[in-house]
């Protein structure tokens, strides 16, 4: 596709349920980022992949959050035993390189609502 694609667009989960959010980055992009955006706030960094390697997961809020990118393209963010505070928009971004001046392109996000 032409841009970063995320699915599902919306997800409603019951508290305690596990969810999986998918990101299809732009083809050929080496770097992939996940961000969490709470209502009324700016995106906050969760984790970063360079190809299939997860080089930074310092932003993951708890061990209930897990991300993978096994073949260096599609990535999945999994949240186990969801809680109400997990409700947010989850944004994925990709960029061609990992150095300076490599523009990151964002997907439309997945809006997760935990009830």
């Amino acid at each position, binding site marked *: 596709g032409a841009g970063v694609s995320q699915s599902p667009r919306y997800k409603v989960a019951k508290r305690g349920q596990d969810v999986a959010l998918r990101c299809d980055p732009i083809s050929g992009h080496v770097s992939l980022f996940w961000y969490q955006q709470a209502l009324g706030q700016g995106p906050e960094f969760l984790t970063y992949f360079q190809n299939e390697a997860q*080089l930074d997961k310092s932003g993951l809020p708890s061990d209930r959050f897990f991300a993978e990118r096994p073949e260096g393209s599609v990535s999945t963010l999994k949240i186990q035993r969801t809680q109400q505070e997990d409700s947010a928009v989850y944004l994925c971004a990709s960029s061609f390189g990992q150095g300076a001046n490599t523009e990151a392109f964002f997907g439309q996000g997945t809006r997760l609502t935990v009830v």
Partner: protein
Amino acid sequence: GESVGLHLPTLSVQEGDNSIINCAYSNSASDYFIWYKQESGKGPQFIIDIRSNMDKRQGQRVTVLLNKTVKHLSLQIAATQPGDSAVYFCAERDPRAAGNKLTFGGGTRVLVKP
């Protein structure tokens, strides 16, 4: 659609006027700054960037100013149009961080009045 920025500071501007959005950053090690525009229900969209060795950069109808002394960034939009209504975020990048991850500011909502 979903609403981004229910509790954000808001700048109301008349169509055709110029807009100025301000952002303060805290990390003196940041070497690269970006302004993003986010419309309701969409992801952030790149507008313009600036490196720390510059103090001004111009694009089409937009200008970014960087004052490293006081760690301040601003975005100027000339002749604001209804399509400019959105939430605007500044973001900074620390070159020491893996992958050059971005740290976003809190955002400003711009409402353009016809």
